[in-house]
């Protein structure tokens, strides 16, 4: 993406509440932002290390529950609760990364699914803490000094800040030595190892940052909807993140954001025409079609179209592994 285009996008995002008249549109923008954080988080693992986490809703849910429980039961204010949510999700990521990343591919997927399954069962069964399937209502809206961020416009800017921060973290990480090490691992692990890349160290690092970002998304979600229930662990959330990353372009910085905006706006736009089940059905079919016809995703495809098919690759979008 060119620099001018980037600034234009940033200016558009910053002034969006002025353009969008209805609070409903703003709601869609807020959800797109939250999912943008989640998609960027999943992309760190799927796009840059090549490992698919199908338990990513677990980190999202851990963030949501941590934030909700700390503000509800211990009367913490929003900001320390947010920090705790990020930290706890990151710790869970460390745990899973340490345990699971000696496994690759399908086995990593299975461990992450199982982890999410166990956490979800705990949220349903540990009724004293989580109130079970009934969930936790009344999660307070965040405050910034004397101001409440209850209004949709204020919350939009909070989410936008989180998106910007996550993007910068991803960019910093990906364009550093660490990012190059991760890509080297994805492309050829034995070779990377042979030139001295510490495999486990970098994979665990990616898992921790990814999980912490998902926790950030979870906390933002909890304080936005003001309600947390075991539904935050629904597989649907993970599927949505995967679709966003794969469609937008895994292993690119902009891809997950493009995917998040697309798959937050499209379902809302099509809501009148198609029910939620039709949309999920379409997600499944779309995933299959993407693998067949657009395996690298929209962003690399667009970059190719705009720059001609022989275009040099973006430094942050190496080819998908075959």
């Amino acid at each position, binding site marked *: 993406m060119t620099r001018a285009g980037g600034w234009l996008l940033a200016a558009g995002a910053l002034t969006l509440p002025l353009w969008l008249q209805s609070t409903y549109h703003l709601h869609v923008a807020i959800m797109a932002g939250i999912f943008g954080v989640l998609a960027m988080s999943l992309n760190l693992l799927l796009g840059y290390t*090549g490992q*698919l986490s*199908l338990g990513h809703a677990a980190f999202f849910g851990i963030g949501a529950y941590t934030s909700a429980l700390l503000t509800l039961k211990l009367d913490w204010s929003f900001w320390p609760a947010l920090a705790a949510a990020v930290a706890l999700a990151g710790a869970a990521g460390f745990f899973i990364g340490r*345990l*699971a990343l000696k*496994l*690759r*591919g*399908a*086995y990593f*997927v*299975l*461990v992450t*699914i*199982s*982890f999410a*399954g*166990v956490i979800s*069962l705990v949220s*349903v*069964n540990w009724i004293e803490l989580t109130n079970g399937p009934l969930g936790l209502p009344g999660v307070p809206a965040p405050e910034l000094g004397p101001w409440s961020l209850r209004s949709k416009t204020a919350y939009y800017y909070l989410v936008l800040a989180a998106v910007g921060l996550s993007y910068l973290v991803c960019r910093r990480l990906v364009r550093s030595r660490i990012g190059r090490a991760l890509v080297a691992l994805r492309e050829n692990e034995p070779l990377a190892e042979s030139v001295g890349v510490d495999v486990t160290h970098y994979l665990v690092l990616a898992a921790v940052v990814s999980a912490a970002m998902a926790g950030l998304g979870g906390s933002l979600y909890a304080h936005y909807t003001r309600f947390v229930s075991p539904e935050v662990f629904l*597989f649907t959330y993970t*599927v949505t993140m*995967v679709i966003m990353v*794969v469609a937008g372009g895994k292993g690119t910085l902009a891809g997950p954001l493009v995917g998040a905006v697309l798959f937050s706006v499209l379902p809302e736009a099509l809501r009148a025409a198609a029910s939620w*089940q*039709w949309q*999920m*059905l379409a*997600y*499944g*079919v*779309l*995933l*299959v079609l993407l*693998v*067949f016809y657009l*395996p690298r995703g929209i962003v690399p495809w667009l970059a190719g179209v705009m720059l001609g098919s022989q275009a040099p690759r973006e430094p942050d979008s190496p080819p998908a*592994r*075959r």
Partner: protein
Amino acid sequence: MAELLQHLLNGLVLGGTYALLGMGLTLIFGLMNVVNFAHGEFYTLGAYVSFAALALAGIDFFAALLVAIVAGAALGWLCEVALLRPLRSESIDTTMLVMIGVWIAMQNAELLGWGGVAKSIPHPFPTAPLVLGPVSIAPLRLFVLALAAALIAASWLLIQKTKLGRAMRATFQDRDTAALMGVSIGRIHAATFAFGSGLAAAAGALLGPVFLVYPSMGDLASLKAFSVVILGGLGNLPGATLGGLLLGIAEELGAGYLSSGYRDAVGFAIIILVLLCRPSGLFARQERIA
């Protein structure tokens, strides 16, 4: 003691169907190198086809079972030919994404077609349990156990004694050499996927009348099938059989003596623990971690 025996017996009934699920998945996983996340959807399909044949078409219970198995195998064959065959040279991650897509699509198609309300499959067996000494068992469950055992034995014979089975085993051991020896890999893959999907559909049609039939029932079935495969080792049929029985019994014991809310956590715990401690499976000889 009687309680323990009862749990063991219930576990055996569950385990028989888990073994069916696991055998199909372990063949697909081991032989085709496809991580079939849609496996549970063929289980759901079996249950719904059997329900449709019984309740809507008015077919006999046993014939409906057969219809379900055939439908599962046919759709599995179609799935392999249409989706997996063109991607055979792609990486395991690519086909995994496709199968995740198939999983989501099939499940939501079922949700659209049948609605979210659980259905129960009627069956011709008396509901009064048979009392066998200290334990009792519903005749339906006894039938499920017997038929699962028969299907496991038949699969075993197919793999060990038929020409197709020999070609499958050869392909599993060394695909290229098998192809050089005249085995049509494409045909073997299609047959394997159809066979595995048929077994999954059989498990669904068998457990459908025991429990309820609902669109998301395949999710847990998939995970249990994966636990069984991981317990038994990749492509290991006796391992899958034993693993299935073990998982069924472990779940029953866990639900009976620990907490019924965590029954399904047993499968998850098995996946995590076995993969971390003994990734080649409990009964495997060779290591095949990708």
